[in-house]
């Protein structure tokens, strides 16, 4: 990973502007639409008990969550701290019998995100979009996606009242309706998307629609969940897992999430498209992973925020591309041990 200008770095540099052009109108529209539903903010969450305050773990939906059996290990350990699931990891937790304390949702996409909460119109959504067939986490689900969706739908209806939904004002109408129907208690925030003191700020415009606390997201729900945990829950020990921000080396690039989109960038040239994937050695395990421009951008943003964070973060993913200043890559077992240590002071 060097700073020299390559097709990879040039595309990473363009992602911020692509995101602004893509999301600006949707963010404002969804915030207006959601304002009547956003009755409680994340600052109104009830106080946590001592064990939940002592430590917290954010579970993202990266492939390691399945490969490293992170959810089963949390259950086997009998972890008693706070569990914050990104929306894409929530159903996997329930299937294993783990009930997260919080689930965070952020992405404004109008047809994809509903899937994480059980899509009542799943077959129609699937016919329009092959996005989920490219999700590594859901390899098993490809074979039986319709049944899996129905099972998740019922499972979520059963357990929703035990998890608090942390909902961004950017969430699409169908996700907000589904969350309400399932019976989650909801707490709201705006995504902090730019500098609110600058003219033309989207964040400022969102705040003017409704004064909700604004949380930096790093461009993706897992990072938003981590900032929420750090800044709102304020645990003494904070860890992340399933935060791969990349792919295992044995995955074919054709199965990565943006392969076909990247192929468009190089006019279908299957050799040149390889320039958009870079390999990284994960320091804890010395295994090699690779990343694409989008995940590299998420990683860059996470590292930017970690540098400014008021505390260190334990990365218990045991895989992937996330390492850097203020981040300690440790095993999940090491996190368990630290979460049991008596609080300082």
């Amino acid at each position, binding site marked *: 990973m060097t700073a020299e200008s390559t097709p990879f770095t040039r595309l990473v540099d363009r992602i911020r502007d692509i995101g602004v052009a893509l999301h600006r109108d949707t963010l404002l529209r969804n915030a207006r639409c959601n304002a009547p539903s956003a009755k409680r903010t994340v600052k109104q969450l009830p106080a946590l008990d001592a064990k939940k305050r002592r430590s917290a773990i954010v579970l993202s939906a990266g492939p390691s969550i399945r490969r490293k059996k992170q959810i089963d290990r949390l259950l086997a350990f009998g972890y008693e701290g706070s569990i914050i699931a990104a929306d894409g990891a929530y159903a996997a937790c329930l299937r294993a019998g783990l009930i997260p304390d919080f689930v965070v949702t*952020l992405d404004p996409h109008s047809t994809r995100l509903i899937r994480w909460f059980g899509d009542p119109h799943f077959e129609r959504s699937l016919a329009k979009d092959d996005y989920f067939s490219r999700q590594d986490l859901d390899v098993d689900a490809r074979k039986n996606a319709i049944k899996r969706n129905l099972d998740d739908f019922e499972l979520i209806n059963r357990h929703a009242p035990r998890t608090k939904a942390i909902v961004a004002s950017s969430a699409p109408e169908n996700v907000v309706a589904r969350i309400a129907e399932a019976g989650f208690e909801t707490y709201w925030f705006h995504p902090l998307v730019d500098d609110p003191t600058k003219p033309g700020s989207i964040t400022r415009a969102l705040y003017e629609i409704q004064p909700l606390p604004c949380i*930096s997201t790093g*461009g993706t729900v897992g990072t938003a969940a981590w900032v929420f945990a750090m800044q709102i829950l304020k645990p003494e020990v904070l860890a992340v897992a399933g935060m791969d921000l990349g792919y295992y080396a044995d995955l074919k690039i054709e199965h990565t999430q943006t392969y076909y989109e990247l192929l468009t960038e190089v006019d279908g040239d299957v050799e040149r498209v390889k320039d958009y994937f870079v390999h990284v050695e994960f320091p804890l395990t010395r295994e090699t992973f690779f990343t694409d421009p989008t995940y590299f951008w998420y990683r860059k943003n996470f590292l930017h925020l970690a540098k400014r964070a008021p505390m260190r973060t334990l990365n218990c993913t045991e895989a992937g591309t996330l390492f850097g200043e203020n981040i300690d890559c440790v095993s999940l077992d090491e996190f368990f041990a630290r979460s049991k240590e008596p609080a300082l002071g």
Partner: protein
Amino acid sequence: MMYNTHIVSDILKGNFQVKRPVQETPEADAAKTSFKDEYRRKALGSVGGSMVFVEMDQLVWDGETEEKK
């Protein structure tokens, strides 16, 4: 499944000769360009992440309350 628009256009032209050469109108050319632009724009949208993010020092901001501190 997505296809490269240049390849699809070439396949659709077929492998036979027509008696009268077909002249593409400027409108047809414009429509084709517009389709390609739209296709490329949508593709780039998927690369653009789940949310806007601009690097800044703050992790949270709570409007006027925050500014008064």
